[in-house]
């Protein structure tokens, strides 16, 4: 049960990052690549310095730097966001495989440790699910709440959402579209890097090529599932996390469903949710940021 929360929150970190970028109108399909780079960076630096916190910070920087590439190409230069994002995934996976060559199947030394919550973690059911988590899990929850607060309750969030809904409107109101978008994309990369760190240090407990195994894509799907809201995305993260954690264990429970089918479920659910949205969108504005995927050039019509 511990693992459901662990996988869920790892997905949540990456999804939250993607949510921030998409709220600003930038689709970043490079999550998988940013997670991989974050993962290898955390593994390397965590082992090197024997400190998971340093690992986390380096992973965040690595993810952020990779995202900056997307920011420059897709936002500043206005290239196609889908193409640039896919390129980022390929680049990130390649880079992480190259950089991680020497670390393959070394055991991870440091992990994000549990908070000393004393007897709480011995509670039945809630104990392992809620209270026997590492401090990074609490950071993830805190980041979710602060993301919600910043988006909904601050000037920065208002401007960011405006840029994602209509860049021309935000521009006319004096909000810098390029600065906002690049900042959002980089923040998204930092969080994807955190997700990668969580993955290699606490979940996989080691580095192998392809350790991300499509979890970055699930994070992208999660944002849709969560209707671009931090709270709903958290629910989706735990649900998808449950599915992923369960997948390798079903057989041991004697359930006769192919694990391949289970691993498809997040995407099937996402397609279902998308369909529901588009039906809803006939009567009201869609939940998706209206300007997503579209570059903005002021003098162009």
């Amino acid at each position: 049960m511990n693992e459901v929360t662990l996988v869920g929150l790892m997905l949540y970190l990456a999804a939250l990052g993607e949510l921030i970028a998409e709220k600003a109108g930038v689709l970043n399909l490079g999550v998988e690549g940013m997670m991989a780079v974050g993962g290898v960076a955390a593994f390397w630096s965590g082992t090197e310095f024997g400190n998971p916190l340093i690992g986390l910070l380096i992973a965040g920087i690595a993810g952020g730097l990779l995202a900056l590439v997307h920011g420059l190409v897709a936002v500043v230069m206005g290239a196609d966001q889908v193409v640039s994002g896919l390129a980022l995934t390929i680049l990130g996976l390649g880079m992480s495989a190259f950089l991680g060559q020497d670390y393959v199947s070394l055991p991870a030394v440091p992990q994000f440790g549990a908070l000393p919550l004393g007897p709480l973690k011995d509670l039945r059911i809630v104990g392992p699910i809620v209270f026997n988590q590492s401090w990074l899990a609490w950071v993830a929850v805190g980041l979710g709440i602060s993301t919600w607060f910043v988006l909904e309750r601050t000037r920065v969030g208002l401007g960011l959402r405006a840029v994602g809904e209509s860049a021309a409107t935000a521009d006319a109101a004096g909000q810098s579209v390029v600065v906002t978008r690049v900042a959002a994309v980089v923040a998204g990369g930092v969080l994807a890097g955190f997700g990668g760190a969580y993955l290699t240090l606490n979940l996989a407990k080691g580095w192998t090529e392809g350790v991300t195994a499509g979890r970055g894509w699930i994070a992208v799907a999660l944002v849709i599932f969560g209707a671009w809201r931090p709270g709903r995305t958290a629910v989706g993260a735990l649900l998808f996390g449950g599915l992923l954690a369960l997948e390798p264990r079903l057989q041991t429970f004697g359930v006769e469903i192919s694990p391949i089918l289970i691993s498809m479920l997040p995407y099937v659910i996402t397609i279902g949710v998308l369909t529901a949205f588009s039906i809803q969108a006939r009567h009201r504005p869609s939940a998706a940021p209206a300007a997503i995927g579209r570059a903005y050039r002021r003098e162009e019509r």
Partner: protein
Amino acid sequence: MSSPPAVELTNIWKRFPGVIANAGAELRVQPGTVHAVLGENGAGKTTLMNVLAGVYRPDEGTVLLDGVEHVFGSPADALDAGVAMVHQEFRLIPTFTVAENVALGSAPPVLRRREIEEQVADLAKRFGLQTDPRREVWHLSMGERQRVEILKALWRDATILILDEPTAVLTPAEANELGRIVAAMAADGRSIIFISHKLDEVTRFCDEATVLRGGATVAASLPVSSLDAPTLAELMVGESTLVSQRRVRNNPADPDQPVLSVRHMTVHDIHGIATVDDVSLEIGSGEIVGIAGVAGNGQRPLADAIAGLATPTQGSVRLEGDELGGAGPNVRTDAGLSYVPEDRIGVGLAPRLSVTENAMMRTYRTMGAGPMVDFGDARRHCEQLIDEFNVKTGGLDAPIAGLSGGNLQRLLVGRELATSPKALVAAQPTRGLDVQGVAAIQEVLVAQAEAGLGILLISEDLEELLALSDRILVMREGRIVAEFDAETATRAMVGEAMAGSASKREPA
């Protein structure tokens, strides 16, 4: 000399790829007045205002506010200098509340919704603007959205407010209300620039008027009392570049044999405004029916609806008596209806495709067998077109983007006529062409009419309409407001009907 003008734009030039939107435009607005900027669609009004509002950087020219020169790098700079613009396409975020839209860009670091909503409500009350700050904008009518836009400007305490065709989306009652608000703001010491091409609004709401044509100022700061419909039409539309002789045709039109008939057609735009309002017309075999009107009075949606590119809310189109109903463009082409759209590139032709590919667009389905296209066939077809219509190209496989306007139009018109249609809708077929180009297209149209083609000719060039048409219908605000026999009609008569006042339909 009294105080300097609130706004002084001098010699503004702005070029876009292929168009000169502003060619030395000038504008001078006195403080505390409402200043009309007039001109037909494409005259460069919006571009000039975007320059003033910091959205576009001019290629040349200076912007002075209260006598001080400003160089705006972004809309934020212009806002800081007190210039706010209400764009024709509103700049509002539908999923934000009214208060959020108003506060956007100048909100406190942490939003206290209640507080902002109260402040917005207070401001609205002060200027008599009815609105609910808590409602999300997508619920609101166009009139309410416009009030939100004006609130945005007041929130920033703009001293210069630009309204780009503000009444285009309003009901007459809402337009009157806007007039009252504008007057209140001017009385408050602000300067308002009011873009319109409706004479009655200009005379009621504004103090002075500047007229733009072809990107340049043709009349500056006229007192509105000196304006009347014919003068205004003359100023806005101008003299035709080509003095056309009335072209005499050999076989006279036969209005008793209608090839194309439109009955009670109404078209609504996405905002629910009726852009075409109960239009009926008939075109006989060999007849050219001209549609005159200031651009933006429903000509384009009418043409699109007849050609099957827009869905009318009401009405029917018949070709030789056969109802076309909801048939798509290709069914219409096959039935014998062709269309030369106003946007040559984009709607008419695909700029990156080759000459051959563009030439075959209407007929490729019958070239070759099954799913395969016979490109040999297509080339022969293209060569024939080029030959017949005298198109000069840089090679059949080159993208058409390199062709001149005149050659593009010859290719387009040729392609549309190659299917031997019974009726043709031609929208602005000679706009922007050089003298030979204009003459060539006009000759083709006349020759086709002589051969029995019924033509609906939509044009902003009055000389052209008078020279080519049998009858001229005048469109204003989506309706046909007058009809003239082109042989006896004069520029003045048609011009007056275009600008307003004459609203009865004369018998032809």
